[in-house]
């Protein structure tokens, strides 16, 4: 039986706006619920501040970067310190594509925002399956 690799899902968790909160919540939904057994994560600041062990994360696990905005901190960080992620999601671009407004507050997501987070999480979960299949 072929053992499928776990997939690293790394969120930017940006503090500047609600997009960072969406990226974080969607990532947690995948880790906690949608693909509990198939995914792992690392705090992005730890990855950035870390050394060999932390930077080895993306070498060990195929990784999905989940960025809140077009600065793509998570994607760039993983590429710079480890290796290019297997996939990247830009929450700001997704919201534009779907014609959805970004959250009005960054602390608490309202019911509509939570639905958007679920929609993003489902895309992430699909990507997890896809990467595992290809591995």
């Amino acid at each position: 039986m072929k053992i499928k690799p776990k997939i690293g899902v790394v969120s930017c968790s940006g503090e500047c706006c609600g997009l960072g909160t969406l990226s974080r919540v969607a990532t947690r939904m995948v880790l906690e619920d949608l693909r509990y057994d198939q995914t792992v994560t690392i705090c992005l600041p730890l990855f950035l501040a870390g050394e060999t062990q932390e930077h080895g994360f993306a070498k060990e696990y195929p990784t999905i970067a989940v960025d809140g905005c077009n600065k793509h901190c998570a994607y760039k960080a993983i590429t710079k310190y480890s290796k290019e992620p297997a996939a990247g999601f830009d929450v700001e671009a997704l919201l534009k594509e779907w014609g959805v407004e970004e959250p009005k507050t960054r602390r608490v997501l309202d019911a509509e925002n939570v639905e958007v987070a679920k929609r993003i999480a489902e895309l992430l979960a699909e990507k997890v399956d896809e990467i595992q299949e290809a591995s």
Partner: protein
Amino acid sequence: MSLRKSKGDTVKKPILILPCSGIGKSFGSIARDATFRVCDELRPGKADTLCLSLLVMGDKEARNKVASSKCIVIDGCPLACSKNNVVRSEGNVVAEFRVMDLLRENRGLKPKEVTFLDEDGEKLAKILADKLAEKVDELVEESP
């Protein structure tokens, strides 16, 4: 520490609060929630935050901001990612808070949830936010 707003009128530069936003346990969520409570609800205009990841990626604007502002760091775990990253970015760290200390002071509270804080997590975030707001007032008061 003060900026000129218009002739004869000055406005004090906001105190920067930088939480670790750790994603593995509830402690990072508590740090993050408390930060937003202070910046958006308790002390808007007096306190501000910025993306820690952007800072660590070397963004010039973010680096200038932490170097020229008074920074409060909040860490969820002993790895102290916020403090270490702000110090490495030559930020001006004037105060630090640790969620672990808060847990020791409030042993009855046992937060578990990460995605959306549970009742105990919310309580701790409120306690931390009040402490932060107090520290912000103190630092603003000290500023010329």
